[in-house]
């Protein structure tokens, strides 16, 4: 997954004073308060929307959205679990 659009969205929505390049892949978005509980729902819904993941099936687990790295891992594992039934069928 290319994380550039994700970083651009997070920066534009939540930290407009920095550039996407300032946001490290492992920066803790939750502990730092960049993403609070209400913003978390927006972030999840954007990530799912942008990556074609059905929102209903996503557990609201903050750890999956703690950093750009965590989100990338989450998206990639969701893509695999969606792909596998199609591959067998």
């Amino acid at each position: 997954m290319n994380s550039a659009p994700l970083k651009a969205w997070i920066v534009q929505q939540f930290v407009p004073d920095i550039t996407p390049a300032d946001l490290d892949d492992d920066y803790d978005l939750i502990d730092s308060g960049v993403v609070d509980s209400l913003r978390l729902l927006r972030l999840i819904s954007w990530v799912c929307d942008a990556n074609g993941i059905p929102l209903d099936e996503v557990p609201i687990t903050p750890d999956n959205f703690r950093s750009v790295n965590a989100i990338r891992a989450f998206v990639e594992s969701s893509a695999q679990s969606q792909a596998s039934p199609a591959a067998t069928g």
Partner: protein
Amino acid sequence: MSLSRHAQESPDAEALVSGDTRLTYRELADRSIELARLLPPDTGAGPLCVVAPKSPEAVALLLACFRDRRQVLLPSPELGTDVLHRLAAQARCTHLVSIPPEGTTDALSVTPLNTIPTPPAPPASPAPSAPLLLTTSGSTGLPKIVPLPEDGMDRFMAWATTHFGTAPGTRVLSYAPLNFDLSLLDVWATLSVGGTVVLVPPERATDSARLLATLTAARVQLVQSVPMLFRLLADAAEGAGRTLPDVRHVLLTGEATPPELLARTARLFPSARIHNVYGCTETNDSFVYEVERAGGRTELPLGVPLPGVSWTLLADDGRELTGEGTGELVVRTPFQTDGYLDPALNGDRFLRPPGADAVHYRTGDLVHRAADGTLTLRGRSDFQVKVRGVRTNLQDVEQALLLHPDVDEAVVVALPDPEAGARLHAVVRPTRDSARLNSLVLRSHCARHLPRTAIPGSLEITDEPLPRTSTGKPDRQSIKERQSAKERQLAEEHQLAKG
């Protein structure tokens, strides 16, 4: 508090509902007895520090402690390890008790604490008649420990269950975390009369659609919360054309409810009586006002004092204010603490007002008394605000920001926020030779020094000198106005861009 009576008389009545989990009184009592066996032996040396996010297991654990008359320090599960250990040491806790994550073999995690034999300032030994030690929500440093006396808790539960008609079978929502004083009414009072507590676990607390589904499915009859919950529920319900007709009592508490939300709340709960409840951890509830369902109020009065409550307003000079005017509310309730666990913290918060025969608590809230006697809240007498129901001191947040070596000046203001009650905005001027400071760096810095609710929602970094009043103090009012104007403009531009 004992469940044994309900467990014997109505063993199959539902005690707890949490998602798909349902526990009857017998199951809850049995689980609580099992957990009691796993507690460390009571040596009488000190309380247990229980760290437990809300769950049926956490309720059973606390009941086990109450049943065995083990004193419990119940801090917020979100505190950092360092603060948690300092709190536990101050209360002289012997063990840290928590519930391990699911999938672990042990039902309880029990860690002995090395209590330092001679702490520098030994606090008074906690009164044995205080089963529960809650903490205030301070934004920096150590939260204050508030011992709740057993007789005071009993009197509070008796008042709450009588006033709101909570009885066997009444279904009460538990929205606040277990460590909030609100849980005395939501959880412990309800279980004391054989009602059913419907638990909202912390990870579900901001999901409007699920919250609405939970209240609907569990046919909840009593809901107490800060305004945020009512806004979340109204958002979900209005979209779906739904209401919550099972709810009989709605308790608004923690902060002022905006008039627009009051009207939505009345529509959301078509059969409910709506109460504005005022209180704090130190005294528990002290005033209640029943809101007219027809609306028309722009601000809610405090209402009438609860039975047994005495109060007065003190002017700036400490003298009692009589007649019309604004003063600090000083109150004594039949439920209140005798003082903080560390008496050194009592300072001037607990005092005997002129002519009173008992110690009262200074709330720090400014209250206006109109000519007709109506009381209304006018804000704080200090720099405290509430963010998501957590008391936060603006000056403490400023001090934390100033700890960063690249920060020269910092001012923090609170802006009204429909969801959180208040949200913090910080304006920071970096030192002249600082490397480029950005909000991410400051946020990481704040996260090391502050609880999450005290981390400013927005941070502005500017090289301009900060606005000052004629006396040289930061001009918070002008900073607030400037930021509000900026946000309004942004919102308008956003609308234009969308339309």
